[in-house]
């Protein structure tokens, strides 16, 4: 739309530079996003328990923008061969953060992976996370988390792969690797996403000063 019409003015007032172009590729809305939306539903807010402004109760952090970002590198991931001996193949995942404004401060960055293993056998596996540097070589290992059996793997990246008090990079590329594990076959990475909570102080009401 032309910048001067009311719809564009409203869009800008809502902190959005432009309406998404064309029809978005519709995909199921992740349950966590529905849950967070319903938690902040105005009807519930009127139910008498006040919601703290600029705070995401369910995740227990400050914030007024929550994004669920799917891995944009899923097409380029190599097919995993079955494990015969030696380590499992490494994965690279990439998250497009170009929509995050410089003024926004990350308060939660949670990596979520859905692994599929033969007969759900993920005992003893650990996942290491490193930044994937441009030079096609992973950087130093930032953190290592155990792989829970049968559940999505979650890893908090704030302070490790995502700096807490700085604006986020335009793209976050990570190198993931599995270690240990007794199973003979490597689990397969079926889905990767990032749940990013940011606080845009410009949209928060200033604390009222007492008279």
């Amino acid at each position: 739309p032309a910048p001067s019409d009311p719809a564009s003015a409203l869009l800008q007032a809502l902190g959005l530079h432009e309406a998404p172009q064309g029809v978005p590729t519709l995909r199921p809305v992740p349950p966590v996003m529905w849950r967070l939306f319903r938690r902040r539903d105005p009807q519930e807010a009127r139910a008498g328990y006040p919601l703290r402004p600029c705070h995401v109760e369910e995740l227990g952090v400050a914030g007024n923008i929550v994004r669920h970002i799917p891995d944009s590198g899923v097409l380029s991931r190599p097919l995993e061969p079955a494990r015969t001996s030696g380590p499992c193949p490494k994965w690279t995942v990439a998250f497009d953060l170009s929509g995050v404004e410089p003024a926004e401060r990350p308060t939660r960055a949670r990596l979520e992976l859905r692994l599929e293993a033969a007969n759900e056998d993920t005992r003893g596996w650990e996942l290491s996370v490193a930044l994937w540097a441009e030079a096609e070589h992973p950087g130093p290992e930032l953190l290592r988390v155990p792989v829970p059996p049968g559940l999505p793997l979650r890893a908090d990246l704030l302070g490790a792969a995502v700096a807490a008090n700085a604006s986020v990079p335009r793209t976050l590329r990570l190198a993931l690797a599995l270690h240990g594990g007794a199973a003979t076959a490597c689990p397969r990475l079926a889905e990767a996403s990032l749940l990013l909570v940011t606080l845009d102080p410009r949209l928060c009401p200033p604390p009222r000063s007492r008279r």
Partner: protein
Amino acid sequence: HTEPGVGGGPGGTCRTRRLHVSFREVGWHRWVIAPRGFLANFCQGACTLPEALPGPGGPPALNHAVLRALMHAAAPTAGAGPPCCVPARLSPISVLFFDNSDNVVLRHYEDMVVDECGCR
């Protein structure tokens, strides 16, 4: 969509009037997942005595709005005019939508719905 019958003039006392904002009307229904729209409401109506008196029952608490209503009642043609009918209590909304990178985004906006109006 505003409350039927409001028309041009500010009928009745200062109070909340219905104003429904529909995302379909501004063509956002393809990328806004929820809600479809929301009741933003607005304030309209007279702020003269006794409407400018705060709250039911008890003596009027003297405040700026009451002072202004008194001055306006005493000298309607001179002075600053009656107090204004404005939002007195607001609440937030949340919007769930797809952004340009097909991410699902939840944004909270404070002070978006008028719950109560008052004379100020």
